């Protein structure tokens, strides 16, 4: 070590360079999350099919996807998939990242949906039946309004986890913040400043989000609580 391992000059040089990748990182995160939220419904519906073999197969596939590291799934899609005969296609790094990470996270999100629906007690279904509500009305007016709120903080948590996972897409050359930092490092033969910036960006963005989600969680837990409701009513009166 030559005493010059850290330079503020290089830091300020690296900063705008790394920041250029932020748009891509955020775009990948958001696209992947939307993909995962939609694909999560596919798992939810597949698991609700009351056929044992289907249920077993779906559960097994979900377990497989969750138990393999996303980085291997990305490598497979990016490097191995294109050479598979007949079904193989070459995808752009961005598409690969969105589909690869999206499918991986959708298995978790499908489970969140399921836990939300299961959090609504059997009595709610029975009361809706006793009132002769149609299946659609049961879902729309009774089940979903109760099932969705508790899933929101859970979804938020997974959004942050995903955001922190997205830098691994640098390995399939998605030009996000980590990729930019890596390029800067190799060009200048100095990595420490650029990588520190990556860490700082992730921290600055994910920590406040985590705090926000924790607040949301408290709010959701007390949503049918007396005081919360009274506040809501008072607001209605004053506005």
């Amino acid at each position: 070590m030559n005493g010059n391992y850290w330079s503020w000059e290089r830091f300020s040089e690296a900063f705008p360079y790394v920041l250029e990748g932020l748009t891509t990182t955020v775009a990948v995160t958001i696209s992947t999350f939307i993909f995962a939220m939609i694909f999560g419904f596919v798992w939810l519906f597949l698991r609700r099919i009351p056929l044992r073999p289907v249920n077993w197969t779906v559960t097994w596939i979900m377990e497989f996807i969750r138990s393999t590291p996303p980085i291997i799934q990305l490598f497979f899609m990016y490097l191995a998939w294109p050479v598979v005969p007949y079904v193989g296609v070459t995808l752009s790094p961005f598409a690969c990242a969105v589909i690869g990470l999206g499918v991986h996270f959708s298995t978790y999100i499908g489970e969140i949906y399921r836990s939300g629906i299961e959090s609504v007690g059997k009595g709610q279904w029975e009361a809706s039946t006793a009132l002769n509500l149609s299946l659609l009305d049961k879902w729309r007016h009774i089940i979903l309004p109760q099932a969705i709120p508790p899933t929101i903080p859970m979804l938020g948590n997974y959004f942050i986890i995903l955001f922190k996972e997205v830098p691994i897409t640098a390995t399939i050359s998605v030009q996000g913040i980590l990729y930019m930092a890596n390029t800067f490092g190799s060009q200048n033969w100095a990595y420490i400043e650029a990588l520190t910036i990556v860490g700082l960006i992730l921290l600055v963005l994910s920590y406040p989000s985590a705090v926000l989600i924790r607040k949301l969680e408290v709010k959701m837990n007390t949503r049918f609580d007396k005081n919360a409701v009274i506040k809501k009513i008072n607001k209605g009166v004053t506005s």
Partner: protein
Amino acid sequence: MAEPIVRYQDVHKSFGDVEVLKGIDLDIYPAEKVAIIGPSGSGKTTIIRMLMTLEEPTSGDIIVDGTNLWKMEKNGGLVEANEKHLRSVRGDIGMVFQHFNLFPHMTILENCMTAPIRVKGEDKQEVEEHSIQMLERVGLGDKIHNYPSQLSGGQKQRVAMARALVMRPKIMLFDEVTSALDPELVGEVLEVIRDIAKNDDMAMVLVTHEMDFALDIADKVLFLDEGVIAEQGTAADVIEHSQNERLQEFLSRFRG
């Protein structure tokens, strides 16, 4: 007497290997108040849950106002009823549950208004007036904009009754509606039931452990024991003249 509004014909129900009901035959007439008593686990609740379509009989028929509830005609034969058929029959039946099952995300007024609007397509204004009337009737006219979490157990159960009444059922089912309540709240709920029994002409079926109350308001009392109706008749018949030993033993437990 008129035609029965509900008729059970040799109805059996098993859960897995356990046969809970072993052949129920029962007629309920319009405006009749029926109380079902009996030891826990004798299948009392299952009888009314099958009528509410929450539980499907293993065999036998339940006829509601001339229509077979669980079977429908198709190509000249009887097949298992689909949801559409169930919905067409179920509209005449209302139910109040042991654990209230109010919708926690709605005010108590919305709890009452949802079904008449969504299911019957009634006019919103009229439904609102009718709902408020019913909530006033159960003594909660001042709480219509509150949420269920702000009410006591007894109040919740009274809302549940108003919610069922707004649908104008021909048959009302009460499934141990006071069992989950603190003792001091039981009275207010029983008062509402007594009021309904006295002033409404719908048929009522009560599954209950409130023995004195049941015997007081019921036109007909059924004693259910080990999956069969072991005794039935007017309250006086059942209590004073029954020779059934298990019934006498059961009743003696409620007398100090």
